[in-house]
């Protein structure tokens, strides 16, 4: 029941025709809105920040290379020309300093959007994200809230080595007081970033560098400037009845491809795009597992204490008697990311891994 309600709330942003198609179940990832435009994730993020800055003068952008360089990954392209240097700040290379300044500005009532060139660099500022941002509303008993967004690319890119490839979803999602979002498609990116900027709490917004250039169809509703997605609700990208695959960010694309491969072999996989790592949408996940009785969780980050571990624990706690097979967990290899291209491929989950795990989950009960 909750799952259906949840789905309706999620689909609220879609056109009626796409809603019907979702209900029929077998929809491939890229055709959910008829005659729609396509938009890259990069443009989606750019338009989201642009619209929010235009709507609220308290929103400003701060980070390395966000201004004159147009953004290290061109996410903040055009913003400097439009809003001027008073609202788009090129900072020196001082993560701890400028993150703290952002938090202080949020304390005093502004709405900063702090960009980390990658979330790996956020480790230099993590004290401010956690101690001064996440915990402040609690420590001050609700007097001081921190409406700040920390955004940037997270996780592995292509051949960037160990220090530029870590996924921080598990680290940030373990902290009470933070909201952690991980968009996949252009629509996710737009809706979640707009919701994050409007949100009165600190939000860690984990993007993915390899998704920036990917194009996704986008509906008219999503292009509207008041479009927002709810925080804390997962999206069922593909309905199925044999096995539930939960994942987030880039792995959603892999999971959808895996689902198509599984469909050829007669296994109908339900793919859930988590969208929100904290708060985690346990209701949707559990409802889906109760329907399919099998779970495969996928993530790109390190396996120990990861997001998948939390989902497995949640499912075992709440839906144990519904499970027909042990929960499967697919994560990145338990090593710092190697550089060599073939080793990097081995260190990250691939479509074949997901397919294999799903088959394992399905055949085990036989």
């Amino acid at each position, binding site marked *: 029941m909750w799952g259906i309600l949840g789905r309706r709330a999620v689909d609220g942003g879609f056109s009626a025709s796409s809603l019907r198609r979702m209900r029929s179940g077998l929809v491939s990832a890229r055709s959910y809105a008829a005659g729609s435009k396509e938009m890259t994730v990069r443009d989606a993020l750019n338009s989201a920040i642009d619209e929010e800055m235009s709507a609220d003068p308290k929103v400003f952008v701060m980070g390395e290379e966000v201004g004159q360089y147009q953004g290290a990954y061109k996410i903040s392209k055009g913003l400097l020309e439009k809003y001027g240097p008073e609202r788009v700040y090129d900072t*020196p290379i*001082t993560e701890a300093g400028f993150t703290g300044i952002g938090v202080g500005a949020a304390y*005093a009532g502004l709405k900063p959007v702090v960009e980390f060139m990658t979330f790996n660099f956020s480790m230099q500022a993590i004290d401010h994200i956690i101690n001064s941002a996440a915990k402040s509303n609690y*420590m001050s008993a609700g007097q001081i*809230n921190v409406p700040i967004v920390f955004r940037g690319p997270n996780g592995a890119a292509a051949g960037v080595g160990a220090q530029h490839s870590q996924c921080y979803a598990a680290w940030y999602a373990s902290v009470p007081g933070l909201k952690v979002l991980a968009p996949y498609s252009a629509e996710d990116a737009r809706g979640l970033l707009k919701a994050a900027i*409007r949100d009165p709490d600190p939000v860690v917004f984990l993007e993915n560098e390899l998704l920036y250039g990917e194009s996704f169809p986008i509906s008219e509703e999503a292009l509207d400037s008041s479009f927002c997605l*709810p925080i804390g609700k997962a999206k069922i990208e593909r309905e199925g009845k044999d096995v539930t695959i939960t994942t987030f960010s880039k792995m959603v694309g892999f999971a959808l491809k895996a689902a198509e491969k599984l469909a050829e072999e007669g296994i109908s996989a339900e793919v859930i795009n988590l969208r929100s790592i904290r708060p985690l949408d346990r209701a949707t996940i559990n409802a889906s597992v109760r329907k399919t009785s099998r779970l495969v969780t996928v993530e790109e980050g390190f396996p120990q204490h990861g997001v998948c571990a939390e989902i497995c624990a949640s499912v075992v706690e709440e839906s144990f008697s519904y499970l027909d097979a042990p929960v499967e967990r697919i994560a990145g290899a338990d090593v710092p990311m190697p550089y060599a291209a073939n080793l990097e491929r081995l260190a990250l989950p691939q479509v074949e891994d997901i397919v294999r795990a799903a088959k394992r989950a399905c055949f085990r009960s036989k």
Partner: protein
Amino acid sequence: MATSFSATLPLHGSQENRLLLPPIRLAPPPSSFLGSTRSLTIPSSRRLYHAHAARRSPVVGVQEVVKEKKVTNSLVLCILITKEEGLVLYEDMILGRSFEDMCAQMYYRGKMFGFVHLYNGQEAVSTGFIKLLTQSDSVVSTYRDHVHALSKGVSARAVMSELFGKVTGCCRGQGGSMHMFSKEHNMLGGFAFIGEGIPVATGAAFTSKYKREVLKQDCEDVTVAFFGDGTCNNGQFYECLNMAALYKLPIIFVVENNLWAIGMSHLRSTSDPEIWKKGPAFGMPGVHVDGMDVLKVREVAKEAVTRARRGEGPTLVECETYRFRGHSLADPDELRDAAEKAKYAARDPITALKKYLVENKLANEGELKTIEKKIDELVEEAVEFADASPQPGRSQLLENVFADPKGFGIGPDGRYRCEDPKFTEGTAQV
């Protein structure tokens, strides 16, 4: 362990200290501040920024000003404060001292627990700066924040209850000794990590400037960041000096140099112990002042705050001060020399102000005694209030994690915020 860097060597106010200085000539910073002794009519032959010159504070002591004025202009006796101001300063310092002494008592009786860091001896710095601020100016402090909160206007009752962990505390018992927040009085914390408050203070100053320049509001608010000598070796400090000067933010960085970071002497941990010199390196004035003299601190503070309000940018003020107690109530305080403690105890800021007020006939002993009695009663009453207050209810454990009442992007009416048309409407023009 006596070396040339032994802690008993006074850092300031002595000619012999030239040994500690590299023979470098510092260029004076572009602003005329702090050389600007024009208000104190000091002969301009004094060089204020050159390192090899006599290391006296650029702000001359009250007594000297008074003497000079007497010599140069026997018609007018220049006193730096009026009677009302003097009594306000005195009361604030007495409140700080009594409150901290009461904290120690309560801690040893088991009413207070955890980490408690007391401010005894440093009252002149807090009073000297904060009593010049308005309610909308912000103060950011460290874990040694009780007195900063009190000076800024948070009631003694609220602070004491917070320390007892009661629901009537300024943070409803959720913050504790090290996390005093008050939105009403713009006390932005209370941070346990040293150096953590500096970027937050810089951000609050950033907001003042942003409000003025982008939101076109009338905003002259300044921010004062208090931190210690140990913090001045932390990277965040330098990052913020750079950005504050770069963006010309209305902030005053106040270093409460009490020479000790728990048991680590400032001289043992810092390559160049003169912290005020680090200001000009980043393009802002660096001032050193005797932090045991509230009037000197106040004079420096006045100029720094005026500078910030005028939009001329940040200032770094190093206050030489001392904490009479250990780092915290759990610190046995064995490493500090008794002679050093005695030397600074003789320079107790409260006794010094009392002496000044009485000698300059601004107040008599009776009036000061009345103030002391009033404060004693206030603090006692605060303890009774805190004792009588209830502990937080169980449901408070899970409250206030998010500003969003239920997280999940759910608004107060129980529906998703994103479905509420009011939430999503805006004037976005792309």
